[in-house]
């Protein structure tokens, strides 16, 4: 059988690192637990070997934006069922997904891939920032002395830019009293990551995409950064990206979904002590994946789940 997977993710969401670690895992056959094995070593392997080499050497895996869009194909076999599959992963630059939000356009190739997909891999970085903190919430978090410092700065009368010629609003008056600084202009690039992800998924529910039921594996990358939280990947999503969580819970007819936490790099490359320690491990054991069936090193688990037909 053929299994065409589509990879979706914003820039720096761990897409390429996942592919690098996956290629090492299936090609090396180091890990007995790994359910999918490489069935044939053939085809153009330049890109896969390039990113896997960087991964093995504890170097930053080259971003797709640096090497251009690449179609990756792996011929895999399921050790349990014996089913053989040719798995294709178009590795698109994350900026193309930003363009989907910012410019409301998508790559024709992505559109074609989604039409034929057998499952979506959605990458979400656990290192999220700026998920819509409000001004009021921020002000509450600031110590009183900083708030008063803010009040002494700036000249709101010049900067608020009100065009009204009658009574100012409460916001304007309070801003004037506090000496508030002016506003940044809204632009699409300021849309928070969780809203961007909901928009990317929402786009698949209407033309020009073909709306139908899809299987969706959500991969929360850099999972090692969340270890102190003691949350399951789905719980993490509910806490850190509540809009995505709600969207997935209410759109089960369109997206049959599962959530995984993945640490494909396995270590912070800037932490030299941690890297030294990681060198003592078998390379495959740097990988950590947490899913509905627990914790392990088998990065093929989401692919097995995507390929399952219920």
């Amino acid at each position, binding site marked *: 059988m053929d299994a065409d997977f589509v990879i979706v993710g914003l820039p720096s969401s761990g897409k390429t690192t996942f592919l690098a670690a996956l290629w090492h895992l299936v090609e090396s056959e180091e890990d007995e637990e790994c359910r999918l094995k490489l069935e044939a070593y053939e085809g153009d392997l330049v890109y896969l070997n390039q990113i896997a080499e960087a991964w093995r050497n504890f170097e930053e895996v080259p971003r797709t934006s640096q090497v251009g869009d690449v179609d990756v194909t792996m011929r895999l076999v399921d050790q349990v069922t014996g089913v053989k599959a040719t798995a294709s992963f178009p590795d698109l630059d994350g900026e193309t997904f930003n*363009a*989907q*939000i910012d410019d*409301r*356009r*998508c*790559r*024709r190739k992505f559109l074609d891939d989604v039409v034929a997909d057998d499952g979506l891999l959605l990458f979400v970085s656990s290192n999220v920032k700026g*998920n*819509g*903190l*409000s*001004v*009021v919430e*921020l*002000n*509450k978090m600031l110590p009183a002395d900083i708030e008063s410092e*803010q009040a002494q700065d700036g000249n709101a009368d010049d900067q608020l830019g009100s065009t*009204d010629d009658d*009574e100012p*609003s*409460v*916001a304007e008056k*309070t*801003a004037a009293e*506090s000496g*508030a600084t*002016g*506003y*940044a202009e*809204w632009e*699409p690039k*300021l*849309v*928070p990551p969780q*809203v961007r992800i909901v*928009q990317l998924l*929402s786009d698949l*529910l*209407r*033309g*020009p995409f073909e709306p*139908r*039921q899809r299987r969706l594996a959500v991969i929360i990358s850099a999972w090692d950064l969340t270890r102190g939280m003691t949350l399951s990947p*789905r719980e993490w999503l*509910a806490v850190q990206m*509540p*809009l995505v969580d*709600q*969207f997935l*819970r*209410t*759109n*089960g*007819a*369109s997206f*049959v*979904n599962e*959530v995984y936490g993945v640490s494909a790099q396995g270590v912070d490359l800037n932490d030299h002590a941690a890297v030294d320690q990681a060198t003592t491990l078998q390379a495959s054991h740097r990988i950590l994946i947490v899913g509905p069936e627990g914790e392990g090193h088998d990065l093929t688990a989401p692919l097995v789940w995507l390929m399952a037909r*219920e």
Partner: protein
Amino acid sequence: MSDARTDDEADVDVFERPAGQETPDIGDRWVTLPSAGMLSIEDADALLRWRDASLVAVVGERKGGKTTLITEMYEQFVRGPFANCLFSHSLSLLGFERKSFQSRAESGASVPDTPRTSKQDGLSFFHLAVCGEDDLRRTDLLLSERAGEVYREVRDLPAGAAALTEVSKARTIVFIVDGERLADGKRRAEAISSVRNIARAIVESGAAVNAAEVQLVTTKSDLLQGSTADPAIEALALLEERFLTNYESRFASVTTHRTAARDPKGEMEAAYGLASLLRSWLAAPDPAVVGPAVVPNLVDEFDRLLKRKAA
């Protein structure tokens, strides 16, 4: 599989674009996607052809807090489930984002605000689909967005109310009472007069359907706290009482609500009063199913044939 639904094989929720609105290509490599900003009247019509949606007309003069009322509901969903509901979908997600931005820390502002809605923008809509937390039953809302100047003009030329499309199609009509003006003794009488005049113009024009729910919604209630606000509270209570008395026999439901969508000082609970308001919009009566259907008089042979077939 941890998907919450058990009917995965049920209808896939899709938004099929009407014929003639196919997406144009940009060269060979890129394809244009539909807007995710505010919905135009045509967009709203297309949505209504796709699925049932309850239209809420939010009516009031400028700076009354109409847009803030709606965007703060969205902001609550950005933080998690709200009003026993889960966010499900929005065709105007980027519209919500644009209108919410000045309330976000990211904007660099130290006091939250909402961008003014221009008269030139005409009538547009937010789309918000939510599901009940318990049963995942989905309800779609179309929330009107129009500059307050237009409603001010209706005060002066009441005949213009008949042309307010959002009002004639609404299942819920929200008349905004600006709590800020109410709190100010010098502007209080005019604030009350404003909502009284606009409501009167709309009701007497016949633009609103009798099956609708009409609501008197006071915004910025955070400014109506403390003993100094007693005269404003008394005036508001009287206005609410008269609103109920005047309209209870003319509409399916008449209610009053007090809200503080976003207290800039953060002293009042966030989104005060919005949860119950949203739930009331979700429960609005469907005019299409209110009252018995009118059966036309069947007079000719074809009518009788139809009647015999139905029997």
